[in-house]
């Protein structure tokens, strides 16, 4: 409750018109980042506690990757072998959405809760994103699969030999002639 109350307080601060529109001074923006980050971490703890009860993973870590916006996740950067992705659907109906998980360029198999193989593929992260300063360079690809989630669903990712997987992507067009090769 303490963590949730703090998140509520910070969300209250974020209703200020400067926070909404971005017309705050830089040091205020930096402070908004700081407190919002703290509040989100507390929210993740609460969500983890709930998911440990609601899923069949009573010891699950339920880590949230806050750098997915730059296709980076500390949890998968050293390999996405035997990783469970638990998805929470905030919509009031079942939804099918594509999930992207930063991974190394290896072969993976994704299975759903019933052990059925789910089609997946590995696509490269754009070179311009890889070049971002402060970004860890170990994950240069993203594993993509289509998830169907009612409220909560889990998908299991396992590293496999190339023969077992067909998640490669065909490059059908190279950069134009005389263009700098960036892939």
């Amino acid at each position: 409750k303490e963590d949730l109350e703090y998140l509520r307080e910070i969300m209250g601060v974020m209703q200020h018109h400067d926070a909404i529109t971005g017309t705050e001074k830089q040091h205020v923006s930096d402070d908004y980042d700081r407190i919002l980050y703290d509040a989100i971490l507390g929210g993740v703890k609460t969500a983890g506690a709930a998911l440990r009860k609601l899923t069949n993973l009573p010891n699950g870590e339920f880590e949230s990757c806050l750098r997915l916006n730059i296709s980076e996740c500390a949890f998968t950067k050293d390999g996405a072998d035997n990783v469970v992705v638990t998805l929470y659907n905030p919509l009031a109906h079942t939804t099918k959405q594509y999930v992207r998980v930063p991974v190394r360029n290896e072969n993976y198999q994704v299975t759903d809760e019933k052990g059925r193989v789910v089609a997946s593929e590995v696509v490269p992260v754009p070179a311009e994103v890889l070049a971002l300063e402060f970004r860890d360079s170990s994950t240069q690809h993203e594993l993509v699969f289509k998830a169907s989630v009612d409220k909560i669903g889990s998908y299991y990712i396992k590293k496999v030999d190339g023969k077992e997987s067909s998640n490669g992507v065909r490059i059908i067009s190279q950069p134009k002639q005389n263009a700098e090769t960036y892939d």
Partner: protein
Amino acid sequence: DEETVVQTSLIKLVLDNKTGLLKRVEMNGVSENIEQSYGLYRTYDSGAYVFRQYNQGDFVIQKDGVEFTVYDGALVKEVHQRFSDYISQVIRISEDKPYVEFEWLVGPIPVEEDFGTEVVTVFSSEIASDGVFYTDSNGRELIRREKDKREDFSPELAVQPTSGNYYPITSRIALQDSKKRLALLNDRAQGGSSMKDGQIELMLHRRLVRDDGYGVGEALNEQKYGQPMIARGKLFLILNAADESTSAEREAEKEFHLPLWKFFSRNTGSTTAA
């Protein structure tokens, strides 16, 4: 050899190999020539509160020589395009999804000593919109806008003809004629307009050098760790027949603003659940 075609069962995209730009979109039974590129406004008096173009002739749009690579998977097809040292994007279509996704990456924007730069993306179609376009009212209903017009008075737009037509876009901007409708959904509040018939523009990122004197007291030049800000975001494009409902836009908007939340754990037991 003049075109590259990328398609799923619902959407077909055609790229011009010479320019490297998107040139046609086919979806929902409608085909339309849509060219998409980026433009730059060079601004002097722009600040956190206003967008004010310095010289109306300054707008530069990248129309040629865009490098691109296509990644063709069974689930997703991606076109990675590089427009300049600080503008790139991925055009993405996914199997069974009735929208085209544009994931843009802009920054760090270069600036001059006295001039800032504001980056927009421009979608140009042949839809005869006749100066009329629609923008959302704080994410809810759409409001009709008409270029160079106001509902209750005659505006004086000679000094700032572009920014005088800019409106806040918090969820979508659209235009249509009697046959086709083009809508763009965004993931954050931006400014946008339709300066020509069939054309939609959205301002994605700004880096300015002067304060506009309206209160904040700092130039809009956001930095982190001493580096100018790089922004990454998404737009969804939906093209359909004008007489169809806008339900596709509303469905896509839900996925945009309420995506699945992801949590990661190690699988210490069996790979399948009970």
